Every structure is written in structure tokens, then in C-alpha cells.
């Protein structure tokens, strides 16, 4: 009996050894926690957030170019693996109206908001860091706020009259959806606020891209260039010219001058490839095709056509892109702009600023300034001076025509330009693909749901 109790004691102790053993608290073994950077971040941690913001900032570009570009018939996304890249994006059968959570539309909505989230986090981290001087702090914040404003323009362009949220810092308590005009004004205010912050600041961080725009002074010029674009959208012509004068606008002809602008950069894995690069003549059915109207409508000798469009030896077909007779429309031209899959992209360029200058000038009846600016572009691409009518509406048509070629496939200008100038119709949009024209993309379900239940 005594023996039994020894054994019982042994068994009991074994049982309790098993249960009472300490269990170590498990933390994420794979990643640093968000809390660590929000609580008195070091400069190294802030640099991680800055590079993260650069990475978030570039992510929308391919998607915006492909989807907005399809809407504006700058191009067709011949991605045969999913029929919706043409069926839905070209609005075939949709009669000009999208549906909530429209196919592959997150790239121009969710993606830019991820950059906004990152920018807000960087601002919070910089504000709570004790490792910074005030100049340095303002550098981080001015940089983050400028990028945030730029990124907010993308969902706003997608949603247009649906409006968007601008105050999105608290995920469970976001601000209201602002109207298009109010959101645009809020974005312009953010840019002005950032300009003030950048003034006299210093950059205690390094940037992978942005090329010549990585100091507080040059970055402020970029901030003003974005402000000029936003002001143009807001139809504040005088403000547009003011902002342009503080931007990196350079009213000079020449291909090199046209191409000045900040870069987003790409690399090989684990970096990301340039999303617009396709090897020339690749035997594939996944490729962006230049819309044939651009070839047909071009002024003979336009260097932009030669520079940007590559004629394939063999055409590509997509069973979803057919003409009125039901025949497949051959894809004959592909994008020729990129030397490789790691070529950088300039996300806003002097050529656009020149054309913004022309447009604001035309609107303010500074006809000569407008024509001069137009000719800067025309002569650069060797199509001679503008000789047409100088009526405002004709000048705007001419500017839109130049923008169509100068800014082709640069994140969707054509669709946005035609919409803001009331020209988004089949006079300006070639509908040989039997599709329809969207004015905007439906509000996302998550936004509708949030407002319905909160």
C-alpha cells in the first residue's frame, strides 16, 4: 500500500510537471512589430518606414496605366488569362456603368490608400520620435504628406463624383466621404501644409528613387508640380500658374528637358519589376497593346509614335477584342518606352507641366503663352508649329491631342483629361471594340458598408 502511494505521488507530480510548465509568450517570429516604430522610433526605423512609403508609392502605377488607359482607349490590356481584363474594363455589355468592387480596380483604390496609411504612420512615428531635430522632423512629415496628397489623387480620379475619404488615420473611425470638390480642396490643402513643413526642413533620410528631387528644396518643387496638377483639376487657372512657377517647370524645347521629373525605381526580385515592360515581339497573349487609333490619328513624322510604339512582327489576338463583324482585332503595336524590366519611371514630368502651363494660359486667354508652350512640345517631336484656330475650345482640343501622345500610358491621363474637359464621349473615344465609356468606378462595398453600419 505504501508503495502504491509512492507511485501515485510520482504519477501526480508527472501530471503537474506537464501542465505547469511555463508557456513562453509567442511574438511574431517573422516580422518587427508596428508598435516598435510608433514608440520613439530611431532614425534607422524611420528610414525603414520611408523606404516602405517609396515602395507603397510606386505600386499603383502599372494598374492605373492599364485600367485608366483601357477606359480612355489609350491601350488594350490583352491579358487572355482572364477575360475580364477586356470584357469588364472596356465596358462590353456594361453600358457605361461599373459595379461595386469592379474587376481589378483595387490597384487604383486600395493600393494608393496603402501608401496613405504608410504616410500617416510615418508622420505619427516622426512626431513621437525623440531622436530628431525639428528640421528633421519636418523633413519626414513634409515628405510623407506630399506623397499622401499625390496618392489621394488616384482614388479620387477613379471615384470622381462619388468622392473619397481623406481623413483615414484611424481604421475604426474614419472621416466622412468628401465630395469630389471638397476632396480635391483637401488634397490641395495637404500639399500647401506639406510645402510649409518642407520649408527650412532637412532630410535625415535617403531615397531610392526621386532622382534629382531628393533634397528639401527640389522636393518642394515636386510638391508644387503636384499642386499645379491638382489646381488644374480644380480649374483654378491662376493658382495653377502660381504653383507652376514654384515647380520644376522648364519652358524649353528638347527631348531631354521634356523628360525631367522624379523617378520611381524598379529592380530584380525581391525588388519589383517595371510593370509596363514587355520584351519586344514576345510570343505571348499577356501584353499591353497600343490602341490602333493612336497610330491612325498620329501626325506623320511625330517622333513620339516612333519612340513609344513598337510594331510587332506578329500581331497578338484576344478573343474578347473583336470588331463589329466579330473578327478579332489584331494587336500590332506594343509599348516601346522601356529599355528593360528594371527601367525607372518618371511619375510626373516637365512635359506635363508645360502642357498644364499651356492649358491654364489658354483658359486665362493668354493665347500666345498657350501656343508657345504647345509649340515647345510640337517642335520637340518634330511636327511643326501649331497653325490652327486659337479659340479656347480649339486650343484645348489641341492641348488634349498633345497630351494624348506626350502623356500616353502614364497612369491614365487621357480618361481623366477628357472627363474634366467634358469630352468623355465617342467623338473622342474610339469604340471599335464595341465597349462603353465609364465616367467613374462604383464606390467599393467596404466603404458603403462602413457608412451603412456606423
Amino acid at each position: 500500500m505504501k508503495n502504491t502511494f509512492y507511485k501515485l505521488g510520482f504519477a501526480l507530480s508527472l501530471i503537474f510537471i506537464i501542465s505547469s510548465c511555463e508557456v513562453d509568450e509567442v511574438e511574431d517570429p517573422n516580422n518587427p512589430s508596428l508598435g516598435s516604430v510608433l514608440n520613439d522610433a530611431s532614425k534607422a526605423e524611420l528610414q525603414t518606414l520611408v523606404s516602405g512609403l517609396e515602395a507603397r508609392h510606386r505600386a499603383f502605377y502599372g494598374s492605373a496605366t492599364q485600367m485608366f488607359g483601357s477606359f480612355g482607349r489609350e491601350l488594350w490590356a490583352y491579358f487572355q488569362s482572364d477575360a475580364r481584363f477586356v470584357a469588364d474594363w472596356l465596358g462590353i455589355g456594361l453600358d457605361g456603368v461599373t459595379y461595386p468592387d469592379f474587376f481589378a480596380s483595387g490597384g487604383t483604390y486600395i493600393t494608393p490608400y496603402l501608401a496613405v496609411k504608410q504616410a500617416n504612420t510615418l508622420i505619427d512615428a516622426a512626431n513621437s520620435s525623440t531622436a530628431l531635430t525639428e528640421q528633421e522632423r519636418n523633413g519626414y512629415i513634409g515628405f510623407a504628406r506630399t506623397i499622401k496628397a499625390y496618392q489621394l489623387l488616384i482614388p479620387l480620379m477613379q471615384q470622381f463624383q462619388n468622392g473619397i475619404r481623406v481623413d483615414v488615420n484611424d481604421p475604426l473611425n474614419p472621416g466622412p466621404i468628401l465630395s469630389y470638390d471638397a476632396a480635391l480642396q483637401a488634397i490641395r490643402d495637404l500639399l500647401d501644409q506639406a510645402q510649409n513643413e518642407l520649408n527650412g526642413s532637412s532630410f535625415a533620410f535617403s531615397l531610392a528613387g526621386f532622382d534629382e528631387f531628393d533634397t528639401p528644396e527640389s522636393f518642394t518643387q515636386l510638391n508644387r508640380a503636384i499642386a499645379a496638377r491638382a489646381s488644374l483639376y480644380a480649374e483654378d487657372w491662376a493658382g495653377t500658374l502660381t504653383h507652376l512657377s514654384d515647380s520644376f517647370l522648364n519652358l524649353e524645347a528638347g527631348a531631354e528637358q521634356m523628360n525631367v521629373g522624379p523617378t520611381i525605381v524598379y529592380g530584380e526580385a525581391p525588388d519589383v519589376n517595371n510593370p509596363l515592360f514587355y520584351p519586344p515581339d514576345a510570343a505571348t497573349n499577356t501584353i499591353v497593346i497600343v490602341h490602333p487609333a493612336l497610330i491612325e490619328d498620329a501626325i506623320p513624322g511625330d517622333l513620339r509614335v516612333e519612340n513609344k510604339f513598337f510594331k510587332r512582327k506578329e500581331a497578338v489576338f484576344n478573343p474578347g477584342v473583336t470588331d463589329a463583324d466579330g473578327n478579332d482585332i489584331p494587336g500590332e503595336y506594343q509599348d516601346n518606352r522601356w529599355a528593360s524590366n528594371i527601367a525607372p519611371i518618371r511619375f510626373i514630368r516637365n512635359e506635363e507641366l508645360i502642357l498644364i502651363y499651356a492649358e491654364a494660359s489658354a483658359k486665362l486667354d493668354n493665347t500666345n503663352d498657350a501656343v508657345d508652350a504647345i509649340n515647345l512640345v510640337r517642335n520637340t517631336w518634330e511636327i511643326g508649329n501649331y497653325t490652327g484656330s486659337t479659340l479656347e475650345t480649339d486650343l484645348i482640343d489641341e492641348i488634349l491631342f498633345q497630351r494624348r501622345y506626350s502623356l500616353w500610358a502614364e497612369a491614365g491621363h487621357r480618361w481623366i483629361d477628357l472627363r474634366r474637359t467634358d469630352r468623355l464621349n465617342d467623338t473622342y473615344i474610339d469604340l471599335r471594340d464595341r465597349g462603353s465609356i465609364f465616367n467613374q468606378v462604383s464606390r467599393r462595398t467596404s466603404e458603403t458598408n462602413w457608412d451603412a453600419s456606423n
Partner: protein
Amino acid sequence: MRKLYRKFQVLLALSLLAVGTVSAQQFSLNGKVTDSGTGEPLAGVNVIVKGTTIGVITDIDGNYNLTIPGTEGVIVASFIGYLTKELPVNSTTGTLNIDMVEDVTNLEEVVVTGLASSVKRSNLANAVSTVSADELLGTTDPQTLDNALYGKLNGVNINANGGAPGGGISVQLRGISTLGAGSSQPLYIVDGVYVDNSTIRTGRTQVSGASSGQNATTQDNAANRIADLNPEDIESIEVLKGSSAAAIYGTRANAGVIIITTKKGKAGKTKVSLRQDLGIARALNLQDFDDWNPDKITAFFGTGERAEAELQAYLQAVAEGRITNWEEEFYGETPLLSNTQVSVSGGNEKTTFYVSGGLRTEDGILKNTGFDRYSIRANIDHKFSKKLDMSLNSNYIRSSTQRGFTGNQNNTGGSIGYNIAYLPSYADIFPDAQGNYPNNPYFNDNPLAIRDLGVNDSDVDRFIVSSAINLNLLQTDNSLLKFTAQGGIDYISANSLVYFPEILQHQQALANPGDVMWGRNDNLNTNWQAFLIFNTNVGKTNFNTQVGTVRLHQSVENLLTRGRGLSGGQTNLRWATVQSIQGQFDQTVTDVGIVAQEEINWDDKIIGTVGVRFDRSTLNRDQDKFYAFPKASVAANIANFDFWTVNNVNQLKLRAAYGETGGLPNFGNTFESLTPQLIGGSLGGQVSVRGVDPNLEPETASELEFGLDASFFGNLISLEATYYIKEVNDLILDQVPAESTGIQAIATNAADLENKGIELALSGSPVRTNNVNWFSKVLYWKNRAEITRLNIPPFTTGGFGPTLGTYLIAEGLPPTTIVGTPGDADTPGGFTMHGDRLADFQMTFLNQITLYKNWELSFLFHWKQGGDNINLSAFLWDDGGTTPNWNGDDDGDGIPNGEDRQREWISDNNAGVYIQDASYVKLREIGLYYTLPQNLTTRLFNGLVERVKLGFSGNNLFLWTDYESYDPEVSNFGSQPIASNIEVTPYPTSRRMFFHLNIDF
């Protein structure tokens, strides 16, 4: 904790008080136990004195010898597969020979119900499904364990993800138990080891482009790792389907528990068994793609330049006799299947052993695919003394799988099925004399090149080892205090290789041609438990008390490395221009539980059980908190009461059971982290898109189960009927904040779900004569699930979005509701309801007929009625012009059917076009066997061979369905709680036919 300890002490003390006193008088008894049918002696029969722990086991000749206290008593003889017999004896009996009758209705079967105890089926308060070794493999030779369970379990929905060799099957017990946070798959426990049933990433989804990005795991089409187990080693499988039965497994048991027991040796003559299966496989249900002809070319390509070129290509192909049936070309192989199993078992009274080796080699119906499994096992049991015994079960397995490229892809052509959806029969894609594959003008790549040159291999090396000791601490005539401890290890080392050589067409279209993905995975599960069990009899009542603790630790280390821009023919990463880490993922989890259970059995008349388990887990947001999972059940055997006098009703049992279980959050859902992204040489940290709910709790399920079991006419017919209501509360769902906040998901307790279902089983032997023995069993089950509470807005989930059909989670609707375009403002979520993937009911019909003792015929039909699939294969076939009836004109409107459907999909914006009913009837198994007569065997083999059995069988031999693809059983995204039954050109299912030879020495 301290409080718990005190409770435990009190319980233990109470139990010990019940120990009775010892009597001095005794008498002895001996006899022989035989089979009532054949008269053969039965070895290993348990003969015990009722109401005591005194008992012996019959020897090899069926003899027993027993000393019984007192002057009279009741002897209980029990043996697996036979009805228990009770006989009164007294000091004058002396010799008592016992005839045992075969148990047709399995009433006597012992079922594991606790972590350390078991109970006779006739006393069970739950409907626990059991599958024996014979039921599992007796008819045919299914490839994997989960495959072998089809149609044999009531209330269990088994759905193959596709037909690729090597497994990949989803098992859902009693409906939906989670919406994605917890595991949708049951817990598998093999000899006490928590075995890993995860699906290990291979990265195929990235290489084929099916989904890009870092975390997309679900389109790899890899197998779940239960496929590693060798079904041949299995003695029995018990399925605890709902929370009421599985409560004792606590926080991981919401999806049920499958308990697997492997074979053990028996004392006596050493037995050697050899099983050789040889077979072939053929595609079960090829669709026979639409023919191409000039008329069809016009209908599909129009009349332009392109159409003219296609017409020329067609005429040339006809002239060269090169019109090809691409389905036959790819899926038309007739592979050889071979399964060799050898086992040796035996031992003496102290030590028994079971040693087995298995070798399975199977090729697939698609070239360069196949599945090989090598398994070796040793199970050893040793009794040190009457008080102490131990066991060691060890198993090593190597599985090699080549699954090829099917299913989804994007922009690569890296899926045979997707690719040939667009390939007209006249396409010239055959390699030239030098072996160069021409470019495929119809898609991104040449599917022949993908088949011949692409590699998608995975190898698994696995050890499953468990050990247990039982120590009798205290034994009296009617009481026993036992200590049992058990521990186990499941270690998986997995390697995978996915490779597209640089010469492939779509690789040549990339900046860095050649793509290789190497996967390396180490999974280690360790678990152990220790229990004190106290069993005592007070009068006619038996008390069984158990208390114990359990601990489980899991670690996963996963590394995927990728090389692009490969040097000619090289797969070594150093020969890649671009070398990168696709993903490195580590995971570590610890659970600790404390268990107490009390079973009270009053003379097999009323049996009650109460129990509770307390669990904590590091997967919870609050890692230190214990959650309680109680259970209670009662069964009343009405027919065992004295007042029961109805002759032909031998058993009538009413039962009710209640229990609670848990479901844990996914690893990572309780962390807020940064994710890395390189940009231009700088490493950025991106704020993750996932937020954390500080109040997150585990999911809990509670289930109430009622049932009635009855058997009639001397146990020849039995009926088992069960009704259950299973509620899953605090389901963890991703709350989607406004996406503009940059947070896309916060795991939160957002919903409740209710499953109601019935399970009916009717079995019996309609004919039982000397020459004909016919056993028949019908199972019927149905389940209805409904979201009863949802405190986040209704949302769609799974699949490829509303234009192609997706699932809707909304209050008042089944979570398996399929919705899609066009919009419908009256439906929650805003889309039109198109169907529900859950079946209306399922039914199986099993028959086993023995003729003239030597012939056995058995077959198993499985009928699934209702349930819809999202058939995106049909969508692609219509898009590519390959659907079997594409060029017909059923509605006579002059527009071909395929074009009609595409127009309806696109112009009417109707996703419902490709959402189809997926009812089916399958002949799951059929087998005909002949056992050589004993005297012939003896004569032929000179006494060396004990038994020779030959047979033919078929597995999934026939399928009847209106569903318009290879198999209504399919899931592009693997095992999914909700988003199953979506197909994108899967690997077609095969029918398998075998010749069998079984020899026992």
C-alpha cells in the same frame, strides 16, 4: 489553477473511498471459447468476472482458466467482432465452454471516447462512426486514407480538390464549423499523436502565375499531408463528429476529431501477410471537346483575316492527318498502379509486435505525374508485469508526388487544362525532329512543353512515433487505479521543386527566362499527456474517473527560394541571374490543457458522463487565459431493463449528449507587423494590411445531440438515428474596415452559425444462410447551416469575385450561398443568389455478399443530391470554343450555344451561367474476391500457406452526373471552410481497376 488542483484532490479522494473490501472464498473455472458458426477456437477472447477487474485472455487454442472469488458470479466473454456473452457460474460449474456469435451490427465494438478511456458502442451516448480495417480496404485500393473513407461515414462530407495523384481531399464533419479562422479540417490523432494534416506550400501558384504576391498559398494544388499515412496499417478509425463527442479534445476540436488506431500484434503464431494489388487507371469522365470544322471556325473566328488563317491551318492539319483530341493526348494515359504490403505480427504473452512495410507506386493519367509512398512501421507492446505495460509505435514514411500543372494560371500557360481550353484540334504544337517545341499561337505556352519539361515535385520524409505506459497503482477485486502517460512526435521534412525551364515559350517572353522555386519545410508536432484513471464498481454501478493534462507543441519552418533567369537546363539557384527568397515563414504554437471526466454506468442500463477540459493556447490573443469546454451525456438502454419484454427488439437505446469545443485564431492574426519590401537597394518596412482586435477570443462550438439506437431480431438489423444542433459562436471573421483606411482585415468575433442535421443508419443481414451471407447498410445524412448572427456587414468571399461567382456571408442565409452578378439590391451584399454548395442530402448504400464461404462481393454507392459548383472550366471552354456542345444551337437562334452562354454572361452580366448543380451518384467501390478452400491451399502449398485470396476491384468506377465537367468533386483553392467547389480546369479524376492477391502465411 490552485482551485482546480483542490477540486481534483477532492474528486480523487471520493473515488478512492469507493474501494470495496476483499473476500476470502474463491473457486476456479475453465473452458474453451469457439466461434458458433465455424466451431473454430477463438484466441484472445476476454473472459472476465462481471463487476470485477478479474479476467483472463484465451490462449491460441481458445482455452481459459479463471479463479473467481465467492461462490457464484457472472462470466462475461467479449471479443472484437463478436457479441458479448454473459453466463452465470457457481462453484460447481467447473468447465464452461462458450460459443460466440458474430456481431453483425457492431454493438460490441469498443469506441474511444475520452483521452484515456473507451466505451462499448452499445453504451455510447454519441453517434460515433467507426471504420474497421476491412471496411477501409477490404473492397478496393484507394490511394490515400481520406480517399478510403468515402461513403463510409455518416454525416461526413468528403470532397476531393481534384484528381491529381497523391491526395488533396477536404473532410468536413457535420457541416460548417468555421468560416476561415479555425481549421475546417478535423483533428487527426494516430495512436495518440496529433498528426499534421497541413498543406505544405510549393510555390507553384507563383510560378504558374495563378496568384502572385507573397502570401497567396491556396492555388498550389498540393496535397494535405494525411495522404502520407499508410491505410494498410490501420486497425480502426473513429470519428468524433461534433462537439458533444469531441469536447474532451477542447480548443482544437470544433471541426471534429478522427482517431486512428494502428494494428497490433497478437500473442500466438507469427503471422505473415502479403498483399499485392496491381491495377490501371483511366480518366473517368473526359468531356470530348467540340470538333472543329470550317463552319465552326467561321462561328468562332468570324470571317476576317484571322479566320482565313485559321481555316488554312485547319485544312493543312486535315491533309496531314493531324487533327488531335487534346483531352486524350494529355489525359489519355493508362498508368500502372502497384501496391505491395507485407506485414509480420505475433508475439507471446509478454510481448507482441506488428511490423509492416508498404510500397505504393502509381503514375497518373497525365504524363510525368504520379505518387509513390514507402512506409515502414513497427508497433511493439510489452508487459513488464501485471501492473506495468508499455507500447512503442513507430512509422517512417516517404511520399513522392509529381502533380504536374493543371488548374489556374495567369499569363504563363502553366496549366494543361487552362491551356487546352483555347487549343483547337488542328493546332500544330508538336515538337520537331530535334525536339524543339514550337510556340503556341493560341495561348501563352505550348502545353506539350509544359507537360514534358515542367517539373512540380514534392517529397516528404516523415516520422510518426508514439509511446505509452500504463501503470496499475492500485488493484483490488472491484477497483483499479491506473496511471497512463503517452507521448508522440510527428516530424515532417518536406522538399519541393517547381521548375519552368528557360526554353519555354512564356519564359522566353520574360526578361529573365527560366524559373525555379525550391521549397523546404520542417514541421514538428510533439504532444504528451498523463492521466490518472480510477475505475470502481459499487454494486451494479461502475464509476470511471479520469483526470489528466495534455500539452501540444507545434513548430513550422518554411522557406521558399526562387531563381529566375536560369542558365540552360540548370535548376541550382546559383545558376539563376535573379535569386530571391519568395518567403520565409516560422510558426510556433503551444497548447496546454487540463481534463477531468467521470463516467457512471449503472448495469449497462443507464450510462452517464460528465467532463470538462480547460485549455490555453499561444494562438489566442490572451495567451495565458484558460477556456473551459464542458460536456455531459446520458444513454439509456431501455432493452436492458427488466420490464422490457419485447422479444424481437434486442437493443433500444435513447441517448442525449451535450458538449463544447473551440476553434483557434490563425497564426499571425494577433500580431500587428511590418512587411519587408526592397526598393532600389533600400529595404522598406510596409505597414501590414491587417489590424488586430484586442478583444479577440477563440471560436466556441456547442452541440446538442439526440439519438435512438435499436436492434431487432437477434441483432440482425440495427437502426441508428441522430439529430444534432451544433452552434458555433464568436466565429472569427475578418472585419473589413473601410478600405480607404489601408487596413483590409481585422480578425474579430463577428458571427454565430447554426448547423442542424440528421444522420440515419440502417444495417442488417437480410439473408444469412450457410451458403449466402448478405450484409447491407444504408447511410443517409443531411445538414443545414445558417448564419444566425453577423455583426459586420454582409460580405462576399472566395473565388474570383462576383462576375464569376463567389460566396456570400449574410445573416439568415447559409454560409455556403453562392452569389454573383447581376446586382440585386434586395439581396444582402447586393448580388443575385445563384445557389448553395451544400448538398440537400447524401446517401450511401453498402452491400457485402459472401457466397459459399469463398466468394465475396461488395459494392458501395454514394449519392450526393444537390449542391452547386462554380464551374469556371466551362467558362474557359466556352471562351476558347472547346465546350462539347459549343457549336450546337439548342435554342435555334442561329447563334452557337457557346456564344449564347458567353453573351449571357457578358451582355446580361450574369454569373449564374457557370454556376451548376453538382449532384452525382458514384460507384465508389466494388470488389469480387475468391478465397481458395482451406484444403486446397494446404495441398497446394504443402501447409506453408494459410490462406490465399484473389480478387478484382474498382475504385470510382462509374459516375452519373449532369454536371458539365470532369467531376463534381473539386476545389481550386484546396481544402476550404467555405470557398470550396470552385473549379478551374482541374486534373481530371480517374477510375481505378485492380487485381488483388492476398496471401497469409
